[in-house]
């Protein structure tokens, strides 16, 4: 089937089988390997991306379902000049990654909710519970997301990405 994925603001016209899941289309067809695949069960969260602004498991959505949708992946977080996103800076500052396999998923689930955290700090716990990290013990990830949410008021979160999308 012919579809167009809009990933981080760029159009990717693709010819995919219906059975191609979004994560594979991103990795194999768009060459965007930042989105990782762990379990392909919806459990680990390594594949989490934003589709039309909402965090979803890219292993549990078909690429054909995203025809025309705006997809945002970890590659789209940094600004056009390579300036890291506030979340990426916070993950670095808090040592919120070791092997890094889970990191794209945690970054994207946090990116999808960052602006809501201000009114609801417990949301951070729910976000961190959603994905699996085998290295860090979660606490640094929780701190990093809190730090990004406090450091960067909503507007500054929007600016590096709006150019990209």
């Amino acid at each position: 089937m012919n579809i167009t994925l809009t990933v981080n603001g760029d159009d990717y016209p693709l010819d995919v089988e219906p059975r191609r899941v979004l994560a594979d289309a991103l990795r194999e067809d768009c060459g965007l390997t930042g989105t990782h695949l762990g379990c392909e069960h919806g459990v680990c969260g390594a594949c989490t991306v934003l589709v039309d602004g909402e965090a979803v498991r890219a292993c549990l959505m078909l690429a054909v379902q995203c025809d025309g949708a705006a997809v945002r992946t970890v590659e789209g977080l940094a600004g056009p000049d390579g300036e890291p996103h506030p979340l990426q800076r916070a993950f670095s500052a808090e040592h919120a990654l070791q092997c890094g396999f889970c990191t794209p998923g945690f970054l994207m689930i946090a990116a999808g909710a960052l602006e809501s955290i201000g009114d609801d700090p417990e949301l951070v716990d729910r976000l961190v519970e959603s994905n699996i990290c085998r290295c860090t013990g979660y606490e640094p990830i929780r701190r990093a997301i809190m730090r990004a949410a406090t450091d960067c008021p909503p507007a500054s979160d929007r600016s590096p990405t709006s150019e990209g999308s």
Partner: protein
Amino acid sequence: MKPAAFDYVAPHTVREAVDALGDTWRDVRVLAGGQSLILEMHMRRICPDLVVDINHVAGLDRIGLDDGTVRVGALVRHQVFESPQAVPGPLGRLCANAVVNIAHPPIRTRGTLVGSIAWAHPASEWCAIAVALDAVIEVRSSGGVREIAARDFFLGPLQTARAPDEIITSVRFPLLGGSTGVGFVEHRRTHFCFAQVAVAAAVTVHDGLIVDARIGLANCADRPVRARAAERVLIGADVSAANDHPFADAALAGDHQPVDHPFGDADLAGNRLPADHPFARAGRAAADEDAAPVDEPYADPEYRRQVIAVLVGRTLRQAVADWRSHAEPEGGLR
């Protein structure tokens, strides 16, 4: 682990979806949230010939209210129910309490209530609520529409009375009245796990006495269970009795001795209600008469009966507390 090849259509109307499902010589599956279906397709436990993606069908994403019932369309996502205002009254609070137990946020943005009913997992929170409240499942095929009562719908693990050419368009729940209190309590190993046991309760109180009780159990048998024996115990019970033991846990008296279990709940060894307390008796009735737990790893049936007895008592206390905080000003107790 990748899905096997299949044909794919994305109809825009229920009519077109029904026509596609009419292709009964092939394995045709509706794709709603995909949070169970695509997972099963990865494992190749399900290899459909044709997938009918209903996500573009107009009008299915609504919650409608009419005649004391709420009608949940086939595309209403789990996430919607996180707000207790999504549905009016006590039912909205019950849904909000229950839904946070279903997977985690990125699954809830896609998965649907109706998809959970269609999938009929014995541990499903929505299925337990559907049997407790006598929900009605509305299905449509080229032959017309039909309504199936929840009590007749669930036939076993992942088995329902829906025919393969039928699409569920919506599920109807009765709205609960203002003098009803609700509770939902679940026990599971981790956030990624399905419930080991979950209990939904709605109790209606009049003049301080329980006049109606509805209890649904998840993962307590091969299908969702309505705990009718437990409900019978509660009719006429004085809710002020619950208040006498606000921190005590029901049902750990009598025959039920706490077991030393690695995944046991700390409260299992905690405070007890007297064995003759109605919530304790209801917990025992649910565990011994209503439930028929199936053996599974990490939780043998005997352990689960213990958990059922405890959780039923706890859910009832929550329901009475919910009734107190929401209904007392108008409802009036004493």
